[in-house]
């Protein structure tokens, strides 16, 4: 609803400046936010919309200006204050962790920031989340216990939006391009949510490049260009064309010229193509033609483009290709730009053969070629040597299109090339496409924006992996496209693939270690039946304890997405501290161990703050550990403290003590990571740091905690090791480094981070230990032992890869 004449704004931004060095991102911008009003924020790319929103959410401090809340200026406005005032934002690039379940993603946001879990928080949160999704997006069928990675992009967007709606005191909701990934029925639901919220008095700021949508959703439209206010309009008082004119884009309606291509040769012909997500596709493309692929997002367009592109190298049944292909992606961040390079290299990379001398690249030729594209496309930059990341999205896209055309391919595939590109640049791009076709090239254009299809000669509309309609010439307009997009296909009933209990367990990450444990254990027992006795088990598991602890410690660091390359020597250092100091003067020893854990935490802080790769830092740190250990104990000596060996010698009834210790360690880690609230944060940190920080958690703290726990486990490993060898030696525990990494992998953890499997790791550590004794018992040449560990490692991972590929094949 529109704000009333004399209504006081809930929050207002007054004369906001924001400078980055000499660039003036915002200059004197004003924005009044009234309760219950929907503001449509529009403007070309680089207008400063996202900068303004970052200031509003408190992520970015302002250079000058005032933020006035309830009539009084807020001096120290930051992310926390913004949260208190009730500002929430659903980001376009999603702040979700794919490794966490959907419910955990919500829990991350709304748990009070304390480490102590309340009793029933899991069930309470689950119920709340379920209710939320059912109320706002009825019929979305999202299972909140599943990991987020199983969801489609649309559903993820739904989760992201719901996450912001969950905030306790929602007063200002920012939706940043919310419908870019939503199907149109979901978009409709969203528009209804916006209306409901506005009726409840929540102010909504709606950012979108889709001007028709903006006019429907918002009450007031605020236009921003070049970091300045360019006017405010009431949505019912302005037409789309007027809006475009205000934004500086001429809204000229181009006369359609219908060209006849029937005499031109086929560049591409697809007959009865069936593939992943595609059903019986037939299409053709003539020389010099522009064809469009349209339809609701997620109807198989991406798959079709990928199939066509893959035909450039290997023969694909049903695709007949006569010429070279190039591909231009609109997903610039992940599929497009090379971030370390300047404009020149970004344009030339697909075209190096053209600028090559006999062996090397001809610098002069390369510059000329790049310069000619630079001039032609009127880049807004300092020159061809400007880094690509210093450009706006639209200008980056120009470079990518130039790359695609410069490659001299005959067919250019454009995958949503104008996503998030401002209107002026869009016009430039259309013109360029027209010129390209005049050069005799053919173009396949996929776009999420229906209006854009009007530049095509023919359009194929897709639904559910089928082409449902072909539109030609004058038939191509938005109403026809929309109508065609909703044509029902004979839907092959896609049965919800409910994983049966059995197959679900088979693919659980701890399954592989469990099976190997059983097999290896059985083999050991056959060779040496004594193993099954109380003493046999006690001895065996006792000797595995150092590796169990070392691997659990390694797991916490791997969970962060890092690797500890120095824990071989750090166990040696603990070994020395325990064997020399702790035995001699317990207080000094204890102090030494505490300082040691502290050093691990310092390491975490260094890695995070300076953004240094952990692998290198821990490798450097191993020298520090080794040096310290040698200083404490230059030659092997010392002894295990009496109390420690006494403790480990305790005989429990029925179950030997080492087994209890191993079990407790595994379960404790599992409880910490999967049942405690902070466990969610620790796991989330290994997956999506941004999501963590946007939810108000500190990544630095999470990392320090994880490394601290890792340090603690190194101490336990050192203690267990000291007991095993009953002495101190700085040098003898080096192997634990590689062994612990191998164990973590075998245990089912993901090296990319975020997926710890404590119970699997404990089992894997026992397996590693049993393998060695098995080989010794089999009188295997000791030379082969390392090779066998290597082979097992490769085998396990290869198996995992094959299982996953099969899995994925079945899902799609």
């Amino acid at each position: 609803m529109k704000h009333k004449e004399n209504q006081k704004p809930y929050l207002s931004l007054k004369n906001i400046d924001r400078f980055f060095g000499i660039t003036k991102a915002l200059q004197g911008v004003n924005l009044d936010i009234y309760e219950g009003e929907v503001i449509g924020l529009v403007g070309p790319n680089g207008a400063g919309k996202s900068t303004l929103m970052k200031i509003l959410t408190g992520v970015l401090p302002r250079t000058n200006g005032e933020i006035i809340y309830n009539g009084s200026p807020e001096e120290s406005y930051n992310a926390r204050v913004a949260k208190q005032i009730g500002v929430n934002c659903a980001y376009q690039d999603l702040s979700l962790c794919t490794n966490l379940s959907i419910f955990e993603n919500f829990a991350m946001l709304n748990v009070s920031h304390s480490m102590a879990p309340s009793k029933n928080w899991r069930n309470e949160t689950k119920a709340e989340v379920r209710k939320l999704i059912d109320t706002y997006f009825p019929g979305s069928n999202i299972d909140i216990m599943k990991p987020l990675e199983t969801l489609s992009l649309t559903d993820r967007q739904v989760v992201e939006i719901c996450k912001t709606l969950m905030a306790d005191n929602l007063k200002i909701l920012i939706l940043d391009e919310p419908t870019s990934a939503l199907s149109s029925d979901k978009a409709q639901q969203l528009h209804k949510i916006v209306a409901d919220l506005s009726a409840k008095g929540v102010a909504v700021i709606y950012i979108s490049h889709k001007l028709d949508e903006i006019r429907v959703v918002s009450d007031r439209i605020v236009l921003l260009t070049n970091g300045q206010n360019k006017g405010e309009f009431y949505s019912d008082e302005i037409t789309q064309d007027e809006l475009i004119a205000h934004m500086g884009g001429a809204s000229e309606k181009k006369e359609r010229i219908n060209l006849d291509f029937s005499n031109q040769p086929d560049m591409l012909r697809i007959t009865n193509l069936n593939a992943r997500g595609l059903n019986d596709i037939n299409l053709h493309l003539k020389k010099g033609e522009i064809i469009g692929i349209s339809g609701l997002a997620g109807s198989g367009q991406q798959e079709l483009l990928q199939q066509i592109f893959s035909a450039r190298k290997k023969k694909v049944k049903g695709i007949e290709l006569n010429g070279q292909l190039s591909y231009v992606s609109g997903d610039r961040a992940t599929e497009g730009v090379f971030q370390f390079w300047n404009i020149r290299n970004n344009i030339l990379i697909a075209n190096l053969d053209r600028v090559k001398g006999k062996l090397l690249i001809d610098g002069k030729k390369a510059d000329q070629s790049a310069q000619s594209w630079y001039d032609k496309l009127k880049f807004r930059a300092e020159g061809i040597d400007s880094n690509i990341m210093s450009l706006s999205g639209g200008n980056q896209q120009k470079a990518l299109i130039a790359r695609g055309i410069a490659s001299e391919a005959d067919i250019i595939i454009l995958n949503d090339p104008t996503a998030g590109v401002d209107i002026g640049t869009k016009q430039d791009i259309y013109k360029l496409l027209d010129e390209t076709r005049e050069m005799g090239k053919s173009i396949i254009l996929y776009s999420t924006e229906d209006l854009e299809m009007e530049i095509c000669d023919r359009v194929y509309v897709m639904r559910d992996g089928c082409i449902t309609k072909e539109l030609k010439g004058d038939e191509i307009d938005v109403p026809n496209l929309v109508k065609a997009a909703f044509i029902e296909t004979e839907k092959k009933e896609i049965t919800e693939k409910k994983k049966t209990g059995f197959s679900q367990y088979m693919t659980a990450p701890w399954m592989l270690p469990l099976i190997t444990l059983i097999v290896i254990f059985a083999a050991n027992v056959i060779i040496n039946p004594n193993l099954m006795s109380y003493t046999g088990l006690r001895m065996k598991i006792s000797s595995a304890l150092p590796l169990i602890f070392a691997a659990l410690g390694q797991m916490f660091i791997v969970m962060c997405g890092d690797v500890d390359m120095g824990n071989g020597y750090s166990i040696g250092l603990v070994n020395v501290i325990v064997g020399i100091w702790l035995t001699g003067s317990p207080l000094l020893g204890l102090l030494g161990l505490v300082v040691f854990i502290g050093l691990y935490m310092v390491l975490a802080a260094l890695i995070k703050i300076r953004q240094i790769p952990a692998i290198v830092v821990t490798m450097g740190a191993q020298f520090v550990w080794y040096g310290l250990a040698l200083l404490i104990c230059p030659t092997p000596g010392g002894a295990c403290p009496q109390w420690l060996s006494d403790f480990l010698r305790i005989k429990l009834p029925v179950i030997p003590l080492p087994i209890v210790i191993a079990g407790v360690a595994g379960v404790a880690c599992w409880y910490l990571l999967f049942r405690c609230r902070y466990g969610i944060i620790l796991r989330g940190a290994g997956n999506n740091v941004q999501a963590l920080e946007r939810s108000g958690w500190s990544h630095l703290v999470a990392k320090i905690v994880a490394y601290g726990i890792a340090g603690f486990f190194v101490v336990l490993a050192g203690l267990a090791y000291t007991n095993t060898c009953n002495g101190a030696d700085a040098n003898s525990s080096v192997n634990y480094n590689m062994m612990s990494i191998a164990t973590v992998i075998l245990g089912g953890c993901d090296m990319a981070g975020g997926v710890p499997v404590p119970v699997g790791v404990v089992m894997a550590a026992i397996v590693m230990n049993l393998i060695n004794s098995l080989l010794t018992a089999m009188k295997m040449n000791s030379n082969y032992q390392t090779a066998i560990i290597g082979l097992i490692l490769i085998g396990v991972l290869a198996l995992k890869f094959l299982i996953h590929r099969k899995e994925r094949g079945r899902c799609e």
Partner: protein
Amino acid sequence: MNNKVKKVLESPVVWPVMGCVILYILICAVSGAVNVRVITSGLKLCVFAMLLGIAQMIVVTSGKGAIDISQKYILTLTAYISCELMQYNIPLGLVMAIVVGMTCGLINACINVYLNIHAMITTMATGYLYYTVILLVSNKFANSPNDAFVKFTNANVFGINSMTAITIVIAIVLYLVLYKSKYGMNLHAVGQKREAARLAGINVNKTVITAFIINGALCGLAGALNAAYCGGANQDLGTTYFLPSIAACFVGGTNAAGGKSNIIAVCIGAFMMTLMSTFLNAAQISIGGQRLIQGIFIVLLLVAATKNSSK
């Protein structure tokens, strides 16, 4: 002018050069004399860390956090092979060392690429395999180098040690390959973003495999030279160079996530690591103290150097 100064200061070459200067001054201070011999012998000593460092840089640049930790085993294995074969024919030994190195690289790459196993884990596992091979051949193969080849490695060309000369030539060739050729461009593109590289029409697998093979070849060469330099092969030959080479690679500003490298900085980094051990030996510090200082120095240098490369 100001811009130029700024550019120089932002170059990854700055930190290793500063490290070299500081260490040289320290060496002079400890030994009490300004000694040019430190530099000439350093240039000879640093050859191995330099070859491995460059090789590591190429692998790391291929992206996705790739790193080869089997380098030391490849070096040791090829050292044995060169010793054995040079009994019969020197060029044969040298060539076979390089070929075996390339084969090891190819194995690493294929497991990494086709089974989709993280490079670090792959090379850890294959490292175990190579180590077993080393253990098996170590008591069958000759382990003393060919005298003529030793003479060659000790010879001087225009006052420069021949090994140093070879390494410099290789570094120059690789400089051209990495920054002036199509392959180099492709490698850096693949290292930045594999998907984008694929869509730009680059054969990603081939590019990555080639990087590993070049790495293997350099390790093989280093193995053959090292066997001659150390007076024979032994089971732990490569271990000495593992850390200096990795340190050289990253101190030289190589981006750990791939896509950015500077071969000159890496070479200077390797030289710096050699000066460091010279200094620690000259200062007559206990082994424990040596390691401690080395560790702190590397960590601090990384903290300083990555400020530039993270940008």
